[in-house]
């Protein structure tokens, strides 16, 4: 059982890493601020989400597991709001395309 869970952790955490990689590459390579923002949110949503998912089986107790989920939810919400704010900021401060 634990081997299966460990394998699950390895796979999902690795997948999470891929999204962090994607986020970073996007942030560095995409041409303008709004598209870069897209890349960023991918890392927020999926990168952290997959890592949390992968860590859940490794949690020693239910409280920490719940905290992990709460953290992911908070980051979703904060990330979405922050992207909105940053996008509005970009709109105001840069001449439109």
């Amino acid at each position, binding site marked *: 059982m634990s081997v299966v869970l460990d394998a699950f952790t390895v796979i999902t955490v690795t997948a999470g890493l891929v999204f962090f990689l994607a986020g970073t590459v996007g942030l560095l390579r995409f041409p303008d601020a709004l598209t870069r923002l897209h890349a960023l949110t991918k890392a927020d949503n999926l990168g952290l989400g997959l890592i949390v998912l992968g860590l859940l089986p490794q949690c020693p107790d239910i409280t920490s597991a719940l905290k992990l989920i709460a953290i992911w939810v*908070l980051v979703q*919400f*904060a990330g*979405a*709001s922050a992207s*909105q*704010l940053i996008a*509005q900021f970009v709109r*105001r401060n840069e001449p439109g395309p």
Partner: protein
Amino acid sequence: MSLLVDLVLVALILMAAVWTVLVRDRRDAVIAFIVLGLLLSLVWMRLYAVDVALTEAAVGGGATGLVLLRACARLLPVEAEGRLPGPGTQIAAGLLSAIAAAGLAAVVLSPPVPYPSLAALAAENIHQVGLGNPVTAVLLAYRSLDTLLEKVVLVLAVIGVWALTPDAFWGGAPGSLKSKHASGALDLLARVLPPFGIVVGIYLVWNGADHPGGTFQGGTVLAAMWLLMMMADLADPPEIRLKRLRRLVVFGPAVFIAAGFAGIFMSGWFLSYPPDYAKPIIVAVEAALALSIAVILGLLVAGPAAEPPKR
């Protein structure tokens, strides 16, 4: 493998620190400074100083950035004048930093073996105050006088900031923190996040007795929530003449001092706690302090009064 984490961390910190100093634009420097705070929080975490890491995460993430960016907003007109520190100031500052860094390096590179520490002694005596977190025992029991006086420093800081109020505005409200541009996202954030934040803040204070966390971390999170509401225009900065506000500022230090004097009567010494009641007293003092810290930090960010009091 954990060595790799540390190496990357060190490289990033050096980069962020150098960039913070070198970048010309103030706002860019502040953003770099926020990044530096994040990285420092990770460093404390790697050193297993979880209490410090929590403080850095809360203060660096919630308060410092706000204070500095608000200061930037006020300083922009000055920057337009193009007045930068002269070469003399720059050289002096650089020299000072170099001397301090060289001193630190010289000591750190020649460590005494073994490191002497009071950690064991602090842990040995912790049962006398009924706590589980030795950091809290240091802050609220062994060295409680320092903590108490630091809270007096915070009150003095509020007075110092208020002292910058123009005479005609004394008693009025600090300048609004709200953005000129309405934003649904900000409004939503400021409506949804504070309930979570208040729970987390209280949790950190309560948890601090036995686990990492405590008054300052919890108080800072609470302050951040208040500030968020002020920025989203869901709360106005309060008029500085309000008695209710001032009572909240003083509440924590006053409870702490009262507990100190109660100690003289209950167990012989100022700031001593009778063993049976030590934990409830300490938690009560912490709760009062957290409330005051939250209000004080909020007021420090809000700044001096910027309009006359409403009659």
